[in-house]
């Protein structure tokens, strides 16, 4: 809350914030509640929240980069498990982090509810009567006028109303008339909207965390994807997500292109897909680019990475094709030096496997071969062939990117360019047919996004109103002069009061009074 009542006289109190409760002689639970909803506690919790977020930026986080967490464990074998006990590698999912923001929100709601009630009441109430001694206020003035008190007040009230002041005229007896006006209720409205929107924002975030899903999949050019859980390489559903909720869209990666600066930094990526909302829906084409995901059926498909898949053909000594497939290689550096594994379990006398390094633009450096440019300008493949039991029938799950080379026999190494073949000692022929691009896509669905967006917009609007609008009051009293005076003159006194921006208020007051004197 941006305002709180202080020990000012009732007339000076423009805020609807509840006044400080007396802490004596009340129920300890109530006292604890009041303590929790006090501004001081809110301040403390805000400071704690800021402090608690810091370790999340200094230590590697599982949610952002699990590999770095692993590296940290390797580098600090004694310290890391201790840090892990305090969830310091998952700060933003840690129970103590949640405790801080949940307490903050409880404190906020506890503070909001009575303030909304008070403000609703204030919105219906008339501006308070003019204080007895207007001239004692900092922003005040007086002058003499020819008109009757009632006329002056009527004129003032009309002017104020035309400027959207809430205005009330009161007879004070003995011919004295006063007008009380108030403006800027929008300040507290904005303040309340801002804080309520924060609660809505949290609800929207929670909704996404409970009912959304996301997953990633690698698709070589020419291949397709259909949105069922088994198609994903990695799939992370949220707590209450059910598989039956996956929308049945599908797409095929038609084309992928990347362009680069001369120094190898990327210039553009395009992944052109043909997609359908369901098996029977018409196909449409979309160009997925960075910043331009494909939105389909409430889910978004993002282009998050790319690399090269190598088409390898293997023929047995008799010349029969036993293997012909494109295997994705994973990039190791910005120039796309990549590594990968090819497995040929069937069709040969012995199971055959390959480990390989691929260089889209081959360059020999003192430290060994590496790619010198990310585009496939001079594609070269270093291959090592391995014979033996690939372990695929052991029943244990095995990564497609790993080969158990310790149990295998090396049967030669070579370097190939597209179209070139390599004949192994047993007569098996290996051909590097060509290079295809692959792209990785992240597919995400977050049902809370719209609510979060609405809350965010309200946050900005509420904030602007609560910081820009001034809550202020204006009083004017017109009293008939002494009966002896000739001509009889009316004594006019006026005063203004604002909780904030005293400078702006004084300027407005002066202008108003100037208009009234004319």
């Amino acid at each position: 809350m941006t305002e709180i009542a202080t020990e000012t006289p009732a007339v000076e109190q423009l805020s609807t914030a509840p006044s400080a409760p007396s802490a004596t002689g009340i129920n300890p639970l109530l006292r604890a509640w009041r303590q929790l909803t006090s501004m001081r506690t809110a301040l403390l919790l805000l400071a704690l929240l800021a402090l608690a977020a810091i370790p999340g930026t200094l230590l590697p986080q599982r949610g952002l980069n699990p590999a770095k967490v692993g590296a940290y464990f390797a580098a600090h074998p004694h310290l890391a498990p201790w840090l892990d006990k305090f969830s310091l590698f998952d700060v933003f999912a840690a129970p103590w982090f949640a405790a801080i923001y949940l307490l903050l929100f409880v404190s906020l709601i506890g503070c909001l509810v009575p303030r909304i009630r008070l403000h609703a009441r204030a919105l219906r109430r008339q501006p308070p009567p003019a204080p007895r001694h207007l001239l004692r206020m900092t922003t005040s003035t007086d002058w003499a006028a020819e008109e009757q008190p009632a006329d002056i007040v009527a004129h003032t009230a009309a002017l104020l109303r035309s400027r959207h002041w809430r205005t009330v005229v009161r007879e004070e007896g003995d011919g004295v008339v006063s007008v009380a006006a108030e403006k800027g209720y929008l300040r507290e409205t904005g303040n309340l909207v801002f804080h309520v929107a924060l609660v809505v924002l949290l609800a929207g975030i929670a909704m996404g965390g409970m009912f959304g899903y996301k997953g990633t999949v690698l698709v070589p050019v020419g291949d397709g994807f259909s949105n069922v859980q088994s198609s994903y390489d990695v799939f992370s559903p949220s707590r209450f997500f059910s598989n039956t909720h996956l929308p049945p869209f599908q797409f095929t990666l038609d084309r992928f292109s990347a362009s680069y600066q001369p120094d190898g930094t990327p210039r553009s990526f395009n992944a052109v897909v043909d997609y359908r909302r369901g098996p029977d829906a018409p196909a449409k084409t979309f160009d997925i680019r960075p910043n331009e995901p494909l939105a389909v059926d409430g889910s978004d498909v993002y282009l998050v990475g790319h690399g090269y898949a190598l088409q390898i053909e293997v023929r047995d000594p008799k010349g029969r094709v036993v293997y012909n497939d494109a295997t994705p290689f994973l990039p190791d550096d910005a120039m796309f030096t990549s590594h990968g594994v090819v497995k040929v379990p069937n069709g040969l006398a012995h199971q055959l496997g390959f480990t390989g390094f691929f260089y889209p633009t081959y360059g020999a450096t003192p430290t060994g071969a590496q790619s010198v440019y990310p585009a496939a300008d001079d594609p070269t493949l270093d291959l090592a062939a391995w014979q033996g039991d690939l372990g695929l029938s052991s029943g244990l799950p095995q990564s497609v990117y790993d080969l158990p080379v310790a149990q295998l026999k090396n049967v030669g190494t070579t370097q190939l360019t597209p179209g070139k073949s390599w004949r192994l000692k047993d007569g098996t022929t290996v051909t590097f047919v060509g290079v295809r691009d692959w792209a990785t896509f992240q597919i995400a669905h977050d049902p809370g996004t719209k609510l979060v967006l609405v809350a965010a917009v309200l946050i900005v609007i509420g904030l602007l109103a609560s910081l820009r609008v001034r809550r202020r009051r204006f009083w004017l009293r017109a009293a008939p002069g002494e009966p002896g005076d000739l001509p009889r003159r009316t004594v006019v006194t006026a005063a203004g009061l604002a909780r904030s921006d005293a400078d702006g208020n004084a300027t407005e007051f002066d202008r108003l009074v100037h208009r009234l004197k004319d």
Partner: protein
Amino acid sequence: MAPNVHLAHLSDVLFTWTVFVYAIAMLGYAAEFAFARLARARGDEPTRSVRLGKAAVAVTVVGWGLHVSTVVTRGLAAHRVPWGNMYEFSTMVTLVAVTVFLALLVRQQVRFLGAFVMAPVVLYLGLAGTVLYVPAGPLQPVLNSYWIKIHVVAAITASGAFMVSGVITVLYLMKAWLERRAAAVSIGPGTAAAVELREPAVGVRGSARAMVDGVARWLPASDRLDRLAYKVIGFAFPVWTFAIIAGAIWAKYAWSRYWGWDPKETWSFITWVVYAAYLHARATAGWRGRRAAYLSLVGFACLMVDYYVVNTVITGLHSYAGVG
């Protein structure tokens, strides 16, 4: 498209001139202060110092024009918005800071801020032109979105304003310190003597104190400085909020989620929380005044961490914004 070498060079030349002209303006404001002091000591009217101050404002406006030209030519040279790396970002933030100062100057008498705004601006630009400098070049594909215009402009605007509010807050603390001391002295001769005895004005520390003292005397009342700082933060905070939200929307398009606790996101959040605490503190009995001012300075420190430590030390998704 390759960058336009001639325009890029012109931008660099204009940049140097901007720094030079700003430095002159800064000296002008400092001279105004010195001559005003001298005139006061002699009991003269401070006419010469006022003339100097007004001249310094004119020089600042010239520098501002050069500053704008630097940014425009840089953008034209690189065929893109001129806020794609830390050098350009720093150039923009200082431009906003000077703009905020000039905008304040139109509405109220804040020339006393001149030297204190120009000094960090000149320093900051000096740093940008040497340590952070990178030649004009194209953007990475992920930055290629119209959100760079919305998100980054909002972040820059808020940062430039926060910078000015930081300067005013430091001045506020100086003035508040002087007022407290004056109040202590006015209690009675005994207290005054105690103050003098505890802190003898000799040596380096003494002269530094004398300088703070001299500057603080020249400043308007702490109350006004406090309100001025609040006014600027009241402008910057909603803009900063908007910058974070626009960043989140962009992140939703670029990185598939609107919030992911990336270090940059987290430090922006921390900065936001600290400034939010400042706004609350200012409305809380026992926290307004100096304590709130310290919070605002902590907020500014967080902002600096957000831009410089996060970009250079911590790697995250915003790493492309780094040097080189």
